[in-house]
């Protein structure tokens, strides 16, 4: 075990992550909530950045060990520069409300966390290699990256069904950790996956607590933790959890940017663009939301057209460094994706087939009602969306993001229309994970759009009727 490299890697990732967030948020001295949110986002940015840089160096011909060293050192230099730099920061729009949750909500919250931890331990012990996709795709790729001498050998076309065209964010993170350990391990991908689960819940709760106050945030957190199979997804080590964390983080930055004064918008949109590109580098599915979000912000916006183009440029600038890596990988290294293997004429005829569209919608509806995966959440979701989501509420900045979810939903249907695989098999095996990618973002938007008043009379009524809230 290379402890020095481990310290340098951790130091580089944290220094860069905290350096970036230091340039983004200005927090008031008393705000522990916003500081905690900043720390969680810093961690996400740090581990993503080290994975991206590691793969870039590895593509450039460095060995795994050297690529880890150089990635860490570059991040340390960048982190120090970010700490040294000065500039205008964004003052986080904290909730002015001082309500706190009652003790039974806190008790529920603690119980839910306890149950999730117990279930995660049971699943982690029973399936140490994670779910099917994790060992077959993500961890196999990480083992190949770690073990081969030439880049091209890590993407063998001979192993059928292992998707060598899938992006490398998660295999990159695991390879970086293994370079410290000196050998592949089954424990470290599990720890990374659990960390991503913690980031997912933490960022959702932290952002809502910061923007709307703790009661809403705690109930949103309970809903996420109680989503059937959340613990399973957390321990299955698949990339969808990481994609969902990126979608949520990009949504938070876009929302904050749309609420921010014009002078602070640039850094927030750049951050959102970078995080959306990180989602693309995690899974091919990320392309959908990475396109949907900037498009919807461009369309659903009352700003002058010149400003809209400026925002689009900021998104693009943020995404550019990672997009270069994605494009290089897709053009030079990865084999063709199965979605693009067939001739265009077949794709056109498929996309025009109304009977096929009916089948896609029907199977998707069935998956939404699938109690094993979703309980009653996805049956309730459309009603919640119709009730809270479609309105230009007091948080009108959420409206373009709601629209981006609509675009993404249409995109998902379009992808299934074009799939060369058996329709029922493809949707059954992927729809739940696709829905899950958007689930934390959906919860964030729902809770953001719920009417909200910081009024003592309202607080008292809450207390009498529901015992949910209590004035501090």
């Amino acid at each position, binding site marked *: 075990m290379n402890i020095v490299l481990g310290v340098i890697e951790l130091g580089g990732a944290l220094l860069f992550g905290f350096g970036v967030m230091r340039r983004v948020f200005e927090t008031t001295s008393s705000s522990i909530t916003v500081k905690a949110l900043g720390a969680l986002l810093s961690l996400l940015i740090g581990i993503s950045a080290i994975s991206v840089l590691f793969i870039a160096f590895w593509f450039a011909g460095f060995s795994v060990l050297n690529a880890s060293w150089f990635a860490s050192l570059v991040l340390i230099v960048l982190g120090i520069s970010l700490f040294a730099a000065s500039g205008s920061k964004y003052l986080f729009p904290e909730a002015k409300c001082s309500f706190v949750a009652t003790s039974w909500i806190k008790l*529920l919250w603690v119980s*839910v966390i306890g*149950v999730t931890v117990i*279930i995660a331990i*049971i*699943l982690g012990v*029973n*399936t*140490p*290699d994670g779910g*099917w996709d994790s*060992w*077959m795709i993500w*961890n*196999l790729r990480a*083992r*190949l990256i*770690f*073990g081969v001498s030439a880049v091209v*050998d*890590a993407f*063998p076309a*001979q*192993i*059928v*069904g*292992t998707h060598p065209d899938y992006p490398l964010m998660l295999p990159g993170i695991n390879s970086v950790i293994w370079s410290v350990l000196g050998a*592949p391990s*089954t424990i470290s991908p599990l720890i990374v996956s659990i960390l991503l689960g913690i980031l997912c819940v933490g960022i959702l709760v932290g952002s809502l607590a910061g923007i709307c106050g703790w*009661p809403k945030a705690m*109930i949103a957190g*309970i*809903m996420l*933790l*109680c*989503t*059937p*199979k959340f*613990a*399973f997804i957390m321990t299955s080590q698949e990339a969808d959890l990481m994609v969902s964390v990126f979608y949520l983080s990009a949504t938070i930055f876009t929302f904050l940017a749309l609420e921010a004064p014009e002078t602070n918008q640039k850094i927030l949109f750049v951050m959102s663009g970078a995080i959306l590109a990180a989602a693309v580098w995690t899974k091919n599915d990320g392309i959908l939301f990475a396109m949907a979000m900037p498009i919807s912000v461009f369309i659903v916006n009352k700003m002058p057209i010149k400003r809209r183009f400026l925002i689009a440029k900021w998104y693009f600038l943020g995404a550019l460094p990672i997009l270069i890596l994605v494009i290089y990988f897709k053009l030079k290294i990865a084999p063709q994706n199965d979605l693009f293997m067939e001739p265009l004429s077949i794709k056109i005829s498929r996309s025009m087939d109304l009977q096929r569209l009916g089948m896609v919608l029907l199977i998707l509806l069935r998956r939404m009602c699938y*109690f*094993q995966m*979703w*309980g*009653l*959440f996805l049956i*309730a979701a459309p009603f919640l969306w119709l009730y*809270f989501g479609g309105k230009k509420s007091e948080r009108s900045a959420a409206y373009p993001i709601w629209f981006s979810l609509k675009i993404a939903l249409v995109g998902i249907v379009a992808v299934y229309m074009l799939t060369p695989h058996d329709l029922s098999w493809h949707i059954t095996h992927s729809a739940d994970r696709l829905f899950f990618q958007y689930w934390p973002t959906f919860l964030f938007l729902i809770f953001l759009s*719920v*009417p*909200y*008043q910081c*009024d003592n*009379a*309202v607080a008292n*009524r*809450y207390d009498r*009727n*529901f015992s*949910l809230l209590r004035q501090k």
Partner: protein
Amino acid sequence: MKKNLNNSKRVCWFYRACVVLSLIGLSRTIYIHVFVDRKQTDGQKISTSIDLRYESIKKLIPPEIKEVGYLSEQEEILPFNDKYYLQANYALAPRIVVPMNDRSLYVLVDFEQPISFEDLQSKYNLSLLSSTRPNFGLLRKVSK
């Protein structure tokens, strides 16, 4: 004020619905992962590490061997129809495991039913290196 109180009522109902949905979801999670999973396996361990299954044969393959042949009852390996073929690739990485061919110096044999290793050795000109179960083993091509 009236509008605020209406809003508070709506929010109360919304929170109640969220908590009920969450409790249903949590109950489902506990039921499946604590009771159903255990029942299905009669209280035994559901699965063990994939690496453990291949540990003994992995040591016998020299590091310079980059490709290992694979033999099972599947005549053609298609995506997802042979879980153990994919698991072999995961466990033996960075070596790749491909259906047995003329170049295969080492051959991993993994059948569902017990097989006769003697028949396989004579049919394909192989010698048995290791066999941990009657349907699973590593063989090496015999040089002529």
